[in-house]
């Protein structure tokens, strides 16, 4: 069979089925006797089994078959217990991990431990627990089995300079077999013996020693670069992110629209050629009008192909909240709104980690001292932007705590601490290493903080806005562009050069008179809304010549590193949609430049990245 040809098709379809399974299971959690949902779940598992078997993805097929069998029992019985739902979710996680293996062209991981875990349950509890006639409300039968069967994945990376890797891997594999029962290894023993290896060994085993002990036993090898214990099945986040798929599903309707548009474009081309031949200016003008309408339409349609709804991401986050609520024994209600909002799929992919982190933060920090809480996940569209908001009804952030930490860490001077508004203060939690929590928990607070969120969002040309009311909760809003490739920019001029700033980064473009400028020590400030913001000269930042005096100062109010600033430019030109292209290396390393675009008149304009420009300046000081 031409397996390769069907692989990407399999991946796309399987991902949809897995998504559906996960969604149904979360719904069943609150409605475990819904027969229609169980039926639907059964059909999803059945579809995956069929596809995987056809593609000869043996482990996937085995696992899907098992889930199908289990669901068949539940279906006949008419309900699923909480333990079974949990067990089934673990199964779906494992299927997602297998899906990941296939998409990464790795050998499939073994599902043996999962199948055996269920066998264990059958053995220890007998058929009673699976054939029980009464629904056991809230019973957690799945958890203890999961604990007993937890397989451990050991990853050993050799240093590059190891002269002969295969024998070293063989020694290590034998060593690992002393730590427990080896279920599978990559490369396999056969591959090691036939010298088909690189510098990495992955061993999946049912451990008989604590992980710490295993680690201690393995550190004595100077040929080993790194020992890690990747989670074989990650139930939250990693294994299950929306796929970076190489293929995209396009409806035939959309395809027809594209073909029609192309047809119209061809017709217009003939019209224009004809008008040119006859030197007929009126027709030429009409034709160009027609052309720009068609191109705009085409652009819109093509963009639509790249658009996906936030539904998959939202349901992934629902699952995370479900898991977090379970592990922290809290009752958390999740409200979602706007899952149908569509956005560029590249942005959705980039949003997984930041949003996961934000949701975890909301549970871990926001709802820290509460047993019952509400987390709301909202998305809406505002012209060219998509806004995604995570809100909790927890303790909120105490501005005084931030003031104290900001002063302790030297982020603000004592004078600044007094002057800064609460709103601006909240943005400080995005500074690297800023954490108001001293303890590290399993959920969050592991050093990956809001600064990572901010970097990721700003990397896409977006903004992070934080608002909090002590005692009432915290709300974090992400302002995102609709698409990464084509964005709306504000064109400005500085010392004769035209530059572009993504509109998502611009809070306002205004003109002020020199009389409005205040000077506080060396820094020039201007009153904006109800605070003073510092003025920075773009000419100075770009090391251009000093400009002359102006009657009106054009100002771009923007936010950099959590603080509002007023950027003084020579001229505000206007807004425009541009197609941004990354610069080829090594030019992509130039600080302050996020890419380039070509304007209608052929002029190349660079996209200004104020963040990196200012960071560089800060380092120099």
């Amino acid at each position, binding site marked *: 069979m031409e397996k390769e040809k069907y692989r990407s098709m399999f991946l796309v379809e399987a991902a949809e089925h897995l998504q559906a399974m996960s969604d149904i299971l979360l719904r069943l959690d609150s409605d475990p006797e819904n027969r229609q949902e169980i039926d639907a779940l059964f059909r999803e598992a059945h579809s995956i089994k069929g596809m995987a078997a056809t593609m000869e993805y043996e482990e996937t097929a085995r696992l899907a078959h098992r889930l199908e069998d289990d669901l068949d029992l539940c279906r006949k019985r008419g309900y699923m217990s909480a333990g079974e739902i949990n067990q089934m979710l673990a199964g779906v996680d494992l299927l997602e991990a297998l899906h990941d293996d296939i998409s990464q062209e790795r050998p499939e991981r073994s599902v043996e431990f999962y199948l055996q875990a269920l066998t264990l349950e059958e053995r220890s509890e007998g058929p009673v627990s699976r054939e029980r006639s009464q629904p056991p409300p809230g019973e957690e039968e799945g958890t203890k089995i999961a604990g007993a069967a937890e397989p451990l994945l050991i990853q050993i990376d050799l240093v590059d300079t190891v*002269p*002969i890797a*295969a*024998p070293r891997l*063989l*020694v290590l594999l*034998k*060593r690992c077999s*002393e730590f427990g029962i080896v279920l599978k290894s990559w490369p396999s023993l056969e591959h*090691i*013996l036939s*010298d088909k290896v690189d510098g990495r060994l992955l061993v999946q085993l049912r451990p008989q020693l604590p992980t710490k002990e295993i680690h201690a*036993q393995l550190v*004595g*090898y*100077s040929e080993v670069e790194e020992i890690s214990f990747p989670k074989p099945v990650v139930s939250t986040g990693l294994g299950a992110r929306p796929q970076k798929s190489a293929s995209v599903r396009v409806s035939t309707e959309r395809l027809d629209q594209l073909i029609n548009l192309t047809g119209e474009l061809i017709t217009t081309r003939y019209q224009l050629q004809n008008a040119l031949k006859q030197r007929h200016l009126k027709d030429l003008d009409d034709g160009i009008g027609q052309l720009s309408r068609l191109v705009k339409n085409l652009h819109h349609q093509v963009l639509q192909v790249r658009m996906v709804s936030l539904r998959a991401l939202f349901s992934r986050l629902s699952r995370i909240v479900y898991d977090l609520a379970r592990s922290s024994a809290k009752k958390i209600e999740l409200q979602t709104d706007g899952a149908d909002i569509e956005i560029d799929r590249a942005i959705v992919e980039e949003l997984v980690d930041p949003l996961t982190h934000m949701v975890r933060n909301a549970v871990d920090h926001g709802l820290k001292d509460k047993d019952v809480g509400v987390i709301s996940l909202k998305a809406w569209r505002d012209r060219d932007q998509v806004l995604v908001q995570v809100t909790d009804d927890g303790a909120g952030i105490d501005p005084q705590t931030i003031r104290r930490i900001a002063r302790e860490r030297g982020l603000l001077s004592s004078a600044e601490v007094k002057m800064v508004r609460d709103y601006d203060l909240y943005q400080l939690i995005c500074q690297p290493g800023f954490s108001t929590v001293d303890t590290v928990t399993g959920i969050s607070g592991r050093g990956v903080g809001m600064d990572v969120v901010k970097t990721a969002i700003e990397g896409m040309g977006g903004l992070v806005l934080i608002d909090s009311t002590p005692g009432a909760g915290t709300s974090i809003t992400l302002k995102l562009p609709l698409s990464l490739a084509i964005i709306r920019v504000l064109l400005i001029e500085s010392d004769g050069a035209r530059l572009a700033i993504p509109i998502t980064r611009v809070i306002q473009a205004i003109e002020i008179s020199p009389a409005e400028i205040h000077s506080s020590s060396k820094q020039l400030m201007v009153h904006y809304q109800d605070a003073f913001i510092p003025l920075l000269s773009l000419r100075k930042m770009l090391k251009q010549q000093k400009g002359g005096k102006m009657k009106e100062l054009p100002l771009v109010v923007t936010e950099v590193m959590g603080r509002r600033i007023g950027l003084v430019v020579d001229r505000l030109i206007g807004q425009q949609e541009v197609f941004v292209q990354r610069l080829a290396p090594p030019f992509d390393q130039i600080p302050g430049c996020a890419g380039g675009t070509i304007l209608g008149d052929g002029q190349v304009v660079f996209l200004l990245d104020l963040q990196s420009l200012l960071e560089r300046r800060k380092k120099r000081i």
Partner: protein
Amino acid sequence: MPGQVLVVDDALFMRNMLIDIFSQAGWEVVGEAENGEQAVMMYEQQRPDLVTMDIVMPVLGGIEALKKILQLEPEARVVVCSALGQKHLILDALTVGARDFIVKPFQREQVLEVAERVIAS
């Protein structure tokens, strides 16, 4: 004292080098053998904590000697020594039951690291 070691190699130069490395690190070298047959005999008499075994040797090769030693003592700790190009011989020796291996040319630290690790396990 880290332990007792038996050094097996058909080249006198290699034996001397290993003996120096081990004695300087405080090991007691209880014997040296220049072929597999001698090695098995000396193992039976001395029962050392560790054997370093060259693979390619006259009379009786390292892998055959390893098998015989393991018949005498299944828990015997034998480390094979071999040149870079003999990867498959090393894999064979490991499959038969060698605990670890050292690649020639020897590096002092490497030899001691392997020896100490094998003794500790």
